[in-house]
């Protein structure tokens, strides 16, 4: 039987409708479609897809079970490698990872691995998640700093090994970027809560309002626990450093998305945190964060929402699906364009952005062609809101609070091959160690760290 060239399409909300709500855009596969899609997999012996997954999900194996209709077994295989499949199945940049190496690409489209993971995770969640077997309590205690994907994964794995885990989180909600950054229409918060509940059901305690470095120090944690894991992420927003950046109406992506997602400004004034976009919003940058900003701006009532980016579509770092959805929703892409100044009115409120046109020159260190300004090409766009989404750096709070924790060039914590920092017993992973990366890499780091921590604490006396 010939293999179908394209992925089975996933039904989605109509773009014209969805820009008026925060509901999730794709609806997910039905069981029948999922099984049909699973049948497209040709079960390659050399497993190129698995090799391209940062956590080495046994892709052909879970797909085989799914194709045979053994859904519970498929879930089990999948979950043995990824702690948050419902999340990865939605936000993983699979086109550069598993799906990017799928043999079927030679024929047409790859197997929809992400979509299948999403289906399995959703199926299991609706049915009620089975609690996994837990090892006997070891009497060891580990403190995890930060309840993002790295911290939660590490906490979950360590709890399964029988250790006592307490997570210290600065904010009032768990999930890190999954909660405050990635919008509801891409990752419903109900899913994040379900994943967190699962981890709590393993006996993990989460303490909120705990800014480590302020409320409690790493040294104090080290005195009380057998080991500490730091997963504080890359929360520090980068700026364009152009005139006018502190005008009213200029937000960092983090502030804008936190106001809307975590503080629920879309429900203002019933939720008390305000956030307004006016008629025209412009987002600077072209990664996932930028797409989230531009699409959120539409849903917050903007009539026009621009993406302003200094390179071309080819260099845009966002996932293909995000770019595709953004285009469908009518986001206006101003490419090869760079902002030079924000212009305000007499009340200090932004009214326009002055831009310059760019062309691509020689490749830079990252291998991407460097954008260079075209002389005399300046022009202005009238805007009511500017959203700066040009990247985040590692959060300096924890490193600054303990000078023995050595950082590297970009402010990321230095770790060895076992994820141990320069302080014995203190491990780190996720964006704080790598700089802003992806959910799956953060989870992978959390998993690896859990293994190292287990080895470390089992070889020393309990506290």
């Amino acid at each position, binding site marked *: 039987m010939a293999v179908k060239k394209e992925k089975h399409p996933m039904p989605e909300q109509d773009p014209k409708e969805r820009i008026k709500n925060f509901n999730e855009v794709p609806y997910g596969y039905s069981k029948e479609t999922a099984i049909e899609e699973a049948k497209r997999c040709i079960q390659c012996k050399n497993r190129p897809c698995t090799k391209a997954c940062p956590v080495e999900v046994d892709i052909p194996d879970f797909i085989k079970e799914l194709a045979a209709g053994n859904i519970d077994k498929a879930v089990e295989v999948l979950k043995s490698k990824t702690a948050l499949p419902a999340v990865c199945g939605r936000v993983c940049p699979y086109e550069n990872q598993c799906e990017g190496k799928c043999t079927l690409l030679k024929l047409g489209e790859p197997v929809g691995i992400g979509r299948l993971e999403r289906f399995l995770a959703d199926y299991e969640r609706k049915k009620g998640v089975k609690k996994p077997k837990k090892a006997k309590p070891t009497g060891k205690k580990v403190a995890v700093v930060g309840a993002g994907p790295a911290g939660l994964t590490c906490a979950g794995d360590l709890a399964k090994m029988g250790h006592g885990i307490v997570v210290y989180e600065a*904010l009032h909600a768990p999930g890190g970027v999954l909660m405050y950054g990635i919008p509801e229409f891409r990752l419903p918060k109900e899913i994040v809560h379900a994943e967190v509940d699962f981890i709590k059901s393993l006996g993990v305690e989460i303490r909120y309002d705990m800014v480590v470095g302020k409320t409690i120090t790493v040294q104090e944690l080290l005195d009380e626990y057998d080991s500490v894991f730091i997963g504080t992420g890359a929360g*520090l927003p980068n700026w364009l*450093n152009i005139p006018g950046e502190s005008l009213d109406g200029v937000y960092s992506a983090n502030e804008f998305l936190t106001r809307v997602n975590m503080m629920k400004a879309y429900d203002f004034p019933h*939720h*008390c945190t305000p956030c307004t976009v006016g008629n025209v919003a412009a987002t600077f940058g072209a990664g996932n964060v930028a797409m989230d900003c531009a699409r959120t701006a539409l849903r917050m009532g903007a009539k026009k929402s621009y993406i302003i980016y200094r390179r071309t579509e080819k260099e845009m770092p966002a996932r293909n699906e995000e770019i595709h959805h953004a285009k469908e929703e009518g986001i206006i892409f101003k490419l090869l364009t760079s902002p030079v100044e924000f212009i305000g009115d007499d009340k200090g409120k932004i009214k326009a952005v002055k831009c310059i046109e760019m062309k691509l020159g020689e490749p830079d260190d990252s291998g991407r062609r460097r954008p260079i300004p075209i002389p005399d090409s300046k022009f202005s766009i009238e805007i009511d809101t500017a959203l700066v989404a040009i990247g985040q750096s590692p959060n*300096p709070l924890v490193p600054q609070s303990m000078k023995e924790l050595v950082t590297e060039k970009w402010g990321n914590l230095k770790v060895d091959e076992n994820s141990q920092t320069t302080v014995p017993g203190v491990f780190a992973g996720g964006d704080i160690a790598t700089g802003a990366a992806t959910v799956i890499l953060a989870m992978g780091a959390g998993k690896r760290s859990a293994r190292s921590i287990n080895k470390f604490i089992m070889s020393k006396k309990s506290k």
Partner: protein
Amino acid sequence: MYPIMEKKKLSENVKLMKIEAPQVAKKAKAGQFIILRIDEKGERIPLTITDFDRDKGTVTIIFMEVGKTTKQLGTLAIGDKLLNFVGPLGLPSDIENYGTVVCIGGGVGTAPLYPIIRELKKVGNHVISILGARNKSLLMLEEEIKEYSDEFFITTDDGSKGHKGFVSDVLQKLIDDGKDIKIVWAIGPVIMMKVVANLTKKYDLKTIVSLNPIMVDGTGMCGGCRVTVDGKIKFACVHGPEFDGHKVDFDNLMLRNRRFMKEEEHACKIAGVKI
């Protein structure tokens, strides 16, 4: 959850509360602040730590009812609980024995100044305090601050108590009298801090101000609290809230603090609170 242990009305729209939050009390230092959220739908708002009791595990806050959240907070009673109370945030004040220091508090800015005055006195400074308010009924913490001050002045705009005029008049006189002032702390409305900083700049007299931009997380994540200091972007929640007054762009701070004025008025109207 963080229960309210004590509540006092200090003046027409200023209230004091003691909140049980042992982990904050344990670490608190003069100059730092907390962020609280009343309930599930609440906004996160920053308030300075006015006092703390490490043994009882309580933190004192003093707030002026200016908008939705502070007004709602004012309606809560002893025994009610706050959903979130996180801190201590920001960097503590640089307390050391400078010699003679002048501490200027304007309006509700007197609250954050109080623990600074107390600590400065404890390490041996000659403390000169100047409290200013629009009128007598808006003054607060007079007795508490007097206790830790070697010299004590009051100014009111309308002359209902103390010197009629501004805090800066008294400061000017102290300078003219040849007091050997080593450093000035000025905390209050932005315009007051600006006036004081402009005055002391002429005499190259080091001046610390405490900035109050609108905040969200308080951990350096959102950048909403950014202020321009010495031409550079700084985050008040992690690099501040205290800065060198001679380097702060006050005009920009005033603009940024008006960011959500329209929305807040709207929210207050809907919630039935008047601004």
